[in-house]
């Protein structure tokens, strides 16, 4: 039996060095088929008990394509590297492990890592390169790794890529191997199953190009092979697995540290209990707020809080003391505070459920995969249900106010766990509207006949914008906040006369930035003055110039939002707003409006920008480009004033 298994495994082994065929050399650049620079002719990966064997054959077609033949081993574990560069005339340059350049990648107290690089010798712009190497493994996955991820598509066209999973001989702690793909098109791959192996072969994958507002995991070329170790004591059925995960794993994660905070904590909890509003959302809001006042998050501390933090690393080594120390000292990191908050909610018996979100910057979550790597099982959000809709709290994300949480988790699946019964279910986290993330900037400008100008500016935000202002200002003393504002505004033409940041001393208030500045316009010999009505306004979305012809990925923007800019000018008598300035446009992505009015010496300019959502299907790429062009226009539009008695 063992011999049979070995034989089967050998049959499934990588092809190794096979003679090159005429068809290999026939591969050339074909812009009409989107084939450029290089083509991966063959790529095989074979998983064995103690090794993962790799083989690649790459056709190089241009100078840029040479990089497709380079080899980089970040872990420094690759063995038996060998290969050759073959030229069209049949001549070849062989290389081996000795050609690898090993350099230090990092070293610290406990770890040292080296990085190994190979630039194959003899590379030209018209050649074929073969490489084979081995990665040491333990029960079929790389040593010390709990996952294995390999994208099928590459920056170059991939003709054939196959993965062979050979049966693991050791059944103890067997890991499960799952192949996941975002779009299951049967013609894109074939599965060959033997008694001792399973081989999945993918064919003809277009090169993946970086796509503006894309996401590497969510596009039609986004097939990948993902393998991970598995909880062998959990029942691998969709009905049972996630429930058992909550019962056995999550519960343990949040409660394994002994929580003996002492009498001061008990008194504080009693105080909270006494003041707790009846409405659960109000109660949770109050608890989150009080928790943040009592406990400092080390990575987002005010200068006064930071001065009190005196942490020694050794404390991390005594787990049973951690939570007691956190309570005693009043500060901690995300994980410590998350566990303390869990105990607080438990003691107050708040009707909150735990929410473990997935994130847009990770692989899409698939509940049938039984893979819990999509979740951080130590950092839950909390939710209170109101009319069957969850109001979400992110207690240890201190920059987010009650009811807000990072946009990267929105509109995505989340695992909800009831900590009273430790039962679980899947939900989709509700997205917040554009109005939730609002930035309002108000300007007042007074223009003098001699071109001098005095301007005031006041900016406030909610949601993501408020969290941005909190991160920016909360850790700094007041003097530094204003100094930074002054520095950002002062130029050859502009003198800041006053600056202030209000509301940044706590994590509850609305933060307001204000500036008063004087500047001058050189209006000698001119009769028409063009002015930027909204100086220092932030472009809400980047403006990429390069968009690949084929859109393969859906469109992911940072967050739905609304920005309003309003400037009220007082101009000298006789100065007139000139020309056609007003316009508005909207499509499915959002809307933009630019409007100017003049009444006597008052000129009012207002710009409204609304991004409806943070996610759009790829079919709306044209609309997004259109929307960005409007944004570009609106954020660069000046207004013109005809000066008194002037002619153009």
């Amino acid at each position: 039996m063992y011999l049979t298994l070995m034989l089967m495994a050998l049959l499934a082994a990588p092809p190794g060095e096979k003679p090159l065929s005429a068809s290999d050399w026939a591969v050339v650049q074909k812009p009409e088929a989107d084939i450029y620079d290089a083509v991966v002719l063959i790529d095989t990966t074979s998983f064995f008990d103690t090794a993962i064997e790799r083989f690649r054959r790459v056709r190089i077609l241009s100078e840029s394509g040479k990089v497709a033949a380079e080899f980089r081993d970040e872990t420094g574990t690759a063995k038996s590297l060998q290969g050759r560069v073959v030229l069209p005339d049949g001549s070849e340059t062989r290389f081996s492990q000795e050609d690898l350049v090993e350099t230090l990648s990092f070293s610290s107290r406990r770890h040292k890592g080296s990085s190994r690089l190979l630039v194959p010798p003899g590379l030209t712009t018209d050649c074929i390169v073969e490489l084979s190497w081995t990665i040491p493994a333990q029960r079929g996955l790389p040593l010390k790794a709990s996952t294995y991820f390999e994208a099928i598509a590459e920056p170059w066209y991939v003709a054939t890529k196959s993965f062979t999973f050979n049966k693991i001989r050791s059944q103890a702690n067997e890991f499960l191997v799952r192949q996941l793909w975002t779009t299951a098109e049967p013609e894109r791959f074939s599965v060959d199953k033997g008694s001792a192996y399973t081989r999945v072969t993918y064919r003809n994958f277009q090169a993946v190009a970086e796509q503006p507002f894309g996401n590497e995991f969510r596009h039609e070329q986004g097939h990948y092979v993902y393998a991970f170790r598995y909880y062998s004591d959990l029942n691998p059925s969709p009905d049972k697995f996630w429930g058992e995960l909550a019962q056995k794993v999550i519960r343990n994660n949040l409660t394994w540290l002994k929580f003996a905070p002492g009498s001061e904590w008990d008194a504080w909890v009693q105080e909270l209990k006494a003041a707790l509003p009846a409405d659960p959302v109000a109660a949770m809001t109050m608890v989150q707020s009080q928790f943040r006042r009592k406990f400092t998050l080390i990575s987002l501390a005010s200068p006064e809080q930071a001065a009190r933090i005196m942490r020694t690393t050794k404390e991390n080594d005594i787990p049973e003391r951690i939570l007691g120390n956190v309570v005693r000292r009043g500060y901690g990191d995300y994980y410590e505070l998350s566990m303390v908050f869990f105990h607080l909610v438990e003691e107050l018996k708040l009707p909150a459920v735990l929410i473990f979100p997935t994130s847009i910057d990770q692989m899409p979550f698939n509940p049938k995969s039984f893979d819990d790597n999509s979740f951080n099982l130590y950092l839950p959000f909390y939710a209170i249900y109101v009319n069957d809709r969850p109001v979400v709290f992110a207690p240890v994300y201190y920059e987010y106010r009650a009811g807000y949480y990072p946009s990267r988790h929105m509109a995505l699946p989340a695992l909800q766990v009831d900590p009273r019964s430790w039962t679980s279910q899947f939900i989709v986290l509700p997205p917040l509207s554009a109005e939730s993330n609002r930035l309002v900037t108000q300007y007042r400008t007074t223009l003098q006949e001699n071109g001098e100008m005095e301007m005031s500016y006041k900016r406030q935000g909610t949601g993501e914008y408020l969290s941005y202002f909190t991160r920016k200002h909360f850790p700094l003393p007041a003097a530094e906040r204003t100094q930074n504002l002054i520095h950002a505004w002062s130029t050859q033409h502009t003198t800041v006369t006053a600056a202030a940041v209000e509301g940044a001393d706590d994590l509850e208030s609305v933060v307001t930035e204000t500036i008063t500045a004087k500047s001058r316009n050189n209006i000698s010999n001119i009769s028409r003055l063009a002015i930027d009505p909204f100086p220092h306004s932030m472009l809400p979305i980047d403006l990429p110039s390069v968009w690949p012809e084929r859109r393969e990925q859906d469109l992911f923007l940072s967050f739905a939002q609304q920005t309003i800019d309003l400037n009220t000018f007082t101009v000298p008598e006789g100065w007139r707003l000139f020309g056609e300035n007003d316009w508005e446009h909207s499509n499915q992505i959002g809307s933009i409006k630019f409007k100017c009015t003049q009444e006597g010496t008052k000129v009012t300019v207002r710009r409204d920008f609304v991004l409806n959502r943070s996610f759009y299907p790829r079919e709306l790429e044209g609309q997004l480009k259109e929307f960005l062009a409007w944004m570009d226009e609106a954020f660069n539009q000046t207004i013109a004033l005809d000066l008194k008695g002037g002619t153009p």
Partner: protein
Amino acid sequence: MKFSTLIMFLLCGSLFASELPDWASQAVSQVDVANAPKEAGFWTVLDRTRIEYRGGKFRRKRQVVRLILQQGSAEEAAVYTIDGEEKNTRIEALNGWHRRADGSVKKLFKKNVMTLGFSTSRYLTRETTTYAFFEQANRGDIVAFESDESESNLFTATTIMLMSNQPTAMKIIEWQSDSGSARVQPVNLESWGLSVQQSEGRLEIRNIPQIRDESLAPDDSLFFPYVNLAFLAGDSDPSASWDSLARWYTGVFQSAASSSGNLANDKAPLENVAQTIAKSMTYRQVYLEPGRGWKPLAGAEVERRAYGDCKDLSACTAYKLGKSGVMAQPALARIATNFLIDATLPASPYVFNHVIVAIPLAQSLGYAAEVVHGERRFLLYDPTDRYTPFGQLSHQWKGRNLMICDSNGALWVTVPAGAVNQASIQFGLVGALDANNSFKGKWTVSERGDAMGLLTVLNEASERDMINQLREMLSLPGLVTLTNCKSQVDATGTLSLEMDVIWPGFLQRNAGGLRLPTAIIGQSLVTLERLEERQLPLWIDELTSRSWHLELSGMNGLAALKDSWSWKETLGEFSWKATNGETFVVDYQRQRSPARYALADLKDGLKAWEDYGTNFERFLVNATVFYRN
């Protein structure tokens, strides 16, 4: 013992200390904290470097004390770095102290030291940086670090930069060697208003200002004050003079090139070798062994690998020329910055960052890139530049000086103006606007001298990538579609493109009218600081000559305020000519010459830049914005 392990062993002792070391406390006591430099994030109250040179090795002992003035700079202040090389640098000792505002003192802990390597496939190196850092440092805290490093160096010389992005109250440089003598050359101190107190084996400089982040600032460290320190082994020491450096490098280079030959008197072998190099070699920076920054790999090995950096490709060129019976010499240069080196600088190997080939000629072969030194004539050839026609140099060589290395010494030459492949770019846009101000038509591009890097991308990648490069260089909106691209490169290296373009929103609302796209007319200019706040001289870069010819129909009565607009001033030339009519025709040309304004001339520089900006803004409103008649 391995490099990183060694560091760990050296870090020992208790985590807590009762006080800062005496040298740090003393340094703090000597400054007036109430008069700390304004706006500085932290203040280096002591930066002492003691350099010992024994047995051909440098030993560098450093002591740094920093006073944290601003919370926003606390993290930066709490990090101490040591640059080195994996096999070439040893950290013999490393200590740190962090005194908090409450008076408690914490010592550097092992876990707060790490070393990172920087190798990539394009930059193969053993260079490392070791970081020692304190967590939770705050405004009002003091951090002090002390290190002891030993290093083997190819040269007996070293350079110490004096300025950083934070001010320094006291900089001390001390030196000692087993030979007893050292040559010390402070450079650029006077122009920065710095005075030096020098005594035997010691140099002291007080109140060094910070380098602030300012626009249009000098882009080269050689502009700033520094100290050259050399422990010369005699007149033949490579660091002793340009001549000795040239003689030494001639030997180093020739042993790698392993070739000899005669003066060239025929174009064919030269062009054959250049063609082979351009076709078969890939540029990769390689610094894997001590001295590899200077010593090329053997020419035959470079040929086998088919990749290398400037010195490798130059040595390989010399090797291959040698096989054709032609000799070649190295020529050292400094590129990629706007600083122009010359023979009047204090001799130092560190002013060079590039090497190319100088091919001695028996007589002129008619190439533009020929230079003459005395009775001798050379052809300059840069083997890392694959796309400039052979016999010329790329635009970046304009006005630069090189040191040709010869067994008799240094031969300084200047790249002749005619040797440079002039860079310029011309655009043509012919077509019609529709009622929505979308443009549809033909777009032509003519690029000389790889002005926008289009030629390089076309050669190294594809037409698609070249179009993407064009889009990025002009910040073309994503909505613009470019199709049916046809490209052609002629013998002079001029790239011609023609393509169909659809440009929605070609005219955008601005200043009460409709304006041509920013991609065509250019962005508004950067605004600078006021004179009293400006610390750095003004270095205004060249703007490569760029011209547009537009023929637009369908303007429907839109017209510019001005038919023509031009100016010529210190910083450059500008011209615009528009003809209203059924077809609206525009010819627009812009270029800017490089300009340097030293600190003493800053007022004039700021005025020149302001005038330039005002001229440009007025042009934008009066010429590029269209209004209905």
